[in-house]
């Protein structure tokens, strides 16, 4: 694709010959690596078919889409849906909630697997280590429905285990699930419980790649465990941490639909409504296809901008970026 685009800048006179030599070059490349390309073909087709072609549907964000007029004949309204969205009071609410949930995740959830894998790395008894690892992986395989169900079982006011305990201890019951002050923290805690173990896999692999001679040398120099963690292990996996952080920043606008949708209720909707639930409600439930596409498009554009920014900053500070 890129090579073809390159032709545009080539002067017309030379175009013919250049094209031919380029053509030949591409062809021989293709011929040489044909098995690799064949291997990659399903992936390329997948991305074209399911990721790039559907892009064209984004046009409906700029029109009043009606299924029976189709994408081409629906009325063109330009930025009307965006105007409606930005002038809506809910916009700030959605933005605030989305950012708050993501930032809390970044602050608490993101470092957690790193700490966990550092601790696991220090465990000497390998049987014990494996058992712990398996146990912390398991929640990753539960669906959000199950996690939400468990949370309700533990925290609900009429029959939640925690509240029953409080009652036995003579304390007042607490409406955890309907408390808007603690809702964000509850989401973060859920995410940590579910995904922290899974997150350690990458970090443990990175730690395993650290040259053991370094830490042996440090031991000889009299460094203790914490010193080795801080001065050897952490710097060695810094690149991995940066890359994951950049990826995480790119998804700052995605708070995960299922979790929020399952945990929300009338009492906390003010702090729980995020872009994803809003798009679902106005698009799928109320059938405002164009409007919800506009909202979704806005969200994606901000996501792309953020990931580019984070990547730029990472390179600026001398780290390796993602691209």
């Amino acid at each position, binding site marked *: 694709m890129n090579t073809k685009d390159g032709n545009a800048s080539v002067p017309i006179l030379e175009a013919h010959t250049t094209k031919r030599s380029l053509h030949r070059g591409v062809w021989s490349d293709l011929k040489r690596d044909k098995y690799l390309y064949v291997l990659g073909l399903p992936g390329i087709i997948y991305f074209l078919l399911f990721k790039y072609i559907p892009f064209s549907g984004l046009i409906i964000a700029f029109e009043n889409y009606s299924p029976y007029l189709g994408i081409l004949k629906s009325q063109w309204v330009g930025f009307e849906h965006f105007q409606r969205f930005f002038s809506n009071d809910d916009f700030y609410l959605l933005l605030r909630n989305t950012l708050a949930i993501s930032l809390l995740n970044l602050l608490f959830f993101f470092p957690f697997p790193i700490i966990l894998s550092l601790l696991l790395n220090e465990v000497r008894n390998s049987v014990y280590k494996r058992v712990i690892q398996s146990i912390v992986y398991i929640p990753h395989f539960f669906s959000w429905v199950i996690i939400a169900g468990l949370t309700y079982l533990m925290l609900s006011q*009429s029959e939640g285990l925690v509240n029953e305990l409080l009652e036995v201890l003579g304390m007042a019951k607490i409406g955890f*699930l309907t408390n808007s002050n603690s809702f964000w923290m509850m989401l973060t805690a859920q995410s940590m419980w579910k995904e922290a173990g899974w997150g350690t896999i990458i970090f443990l692999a990175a730690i395993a790649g650290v040259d053991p001679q370094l830490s042996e040398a440090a031991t000889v120099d009299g460094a203790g465990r914490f010193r080795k963690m801080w001065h050897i292990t952490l710097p060695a996996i810094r690149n991995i941490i940066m890359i994951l952080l950049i990826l995480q920043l790119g998804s700052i606008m995605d708070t995960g639909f299922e979790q929020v949708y399952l945990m929300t209720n*009338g009492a906390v909707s003010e702090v729980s409504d995020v872009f994803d639930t809003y798009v679902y409600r106005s698009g*799928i439930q109320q*059938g405002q296809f164009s409007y919800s596409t506009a909202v979704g498009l806005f969200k994606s554009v901000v996501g792309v901008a953020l990931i580019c920014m984070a990547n730029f900053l990472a390179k600026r500070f001398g780290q390796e970026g993602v691209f």
Partner: protein
Amino acid sequence: MKRRTRLTHLTLAVPLAFSLVLTACGGSDSASNQGEGESKTSGKPTEITTAIMNYEADMVGEDNVVWKELEKRTNTKLKITWIPEASFDEKLNVMLASGDLPELTYVESIDTPQIRSLISQGVFWDLTPFIKDYPNMNKLPKETWSNSKIDGKQYVIPRYYPIVGGGLFPILRQDWLDKLGLKTPESLDDLYQVLKAFTEGDPDGNGNKDTIGMAGYLGSFNFIFNVMNETGGAWKLRDGSIYPLITEDKSREALLYVKKLYDEGLISPDLAILKLNQVLEAVKGNKAGAASLSMAYSWEVTGELRKTLPNAEFRALPYLKSTNDVKYVPATGGFYGAYLIPKKVSESKVKSILKFLDYGYSQEVNDLANYGIKGVHYNEENGRKISTEQANKDLVKVGGNLGSIWRPLGFAQVIDSVGIANDVYEQNKKTIDERLKSYLKDPALGVVSDAYNKFWPDIDKKVTDFRVKVILGQESIDAYDQLIAKIKEDANYKKVVEEMNAAYKQRVAENGLGE
């Protein structure tokens, strides 16, 4: 989103992945114009593709014996995709968005923006000229037809539902009332006293204060808003104009009433997060003395309780009175759900589809769909249909499975159930008679507008969510007053009310549905 409350309710609504593959039709348009009801049809069966909402967990398939019998009697080949209630809105919206509509399109509400705009774009057949040819359909009640007209035309075939018996309204433990020496409540004050006694008077006699008056989620208490405002639906008719209930002064009183119930522990402490299933568990588990449910639940719950408590009985309230002695009980427009036929279907096929629908409104085919085959799935005793064990095995359900296509005629679906005890059945009949005298109409039935579709869901949600906070004590009633005052000044709110009133007046002029 939807102005009228759902007639029955759902469990934790988890959108399940559910394939929407609608089999394309190999249309065999043999227009069968044979005699009505029982058919001695010849020729090839008509193939009909449709997707219908089904409340049952065990959904019936085309190898079912009743299904086969239905196809035989109506000379059709039915390709039905059942859609679970919990995900119906999403499934329908996806179908509408893709433009891939089944030949017989079922919708739960005809007042949604998508349906209205598609109708105005001419996507569906205007069935007005055809209907007179179908005798069974013409026997449906007048209001069923008039309430389902859109712009004065019959674009839809309404799915019949009795005018009263549905909707969320209290059912109460009669045996608890008797034990505590209380009368059936007639006003909200009475109801408060009853719920208080149910909570504090140890009605289950185990010596512990472990019962609550009423189990419910937020929507369960909507009837209080209707009783106080003396109207059905979500709009109040005053001096020839309609006003949204949420901003009415009486709704503030209703909110404080619910708050009082909550503060005194007479209703579920976690009403903000409860779902229908937990409410049913509470009443079936002898923990709550009341719930707000459609009448059909009175047997479902009573039957379950009677397994251990032979005297238990849940009885549906006939009505509740406002302080001005105006009675209220929820009502429908005489139908629940409706069918439309897209224009891509040929005229001759339209006629055969209508013929099929018409069969279902004949007593025989209606009975077949809802009760199964006589002598196999039910027997007639004293004019009543008593279901056999086989009915459960073959997934025969009144108003469910094949009964989802046409719910039963008359009042059977709200007073009768499989295995219902005689006393409960007789009581239900009495309650229906009483309810028929007490229901209030929804003035905004069938009234829609653009601004309503666009802005109302958000405004409504804002107020509903705020109500929860007031009930839980997280916000004060003063803050609520400020919110309502602010909403009344909101430009979008004003636009909705203005457009809705214009649409209301137009509808009154067309249908002559005055006060």
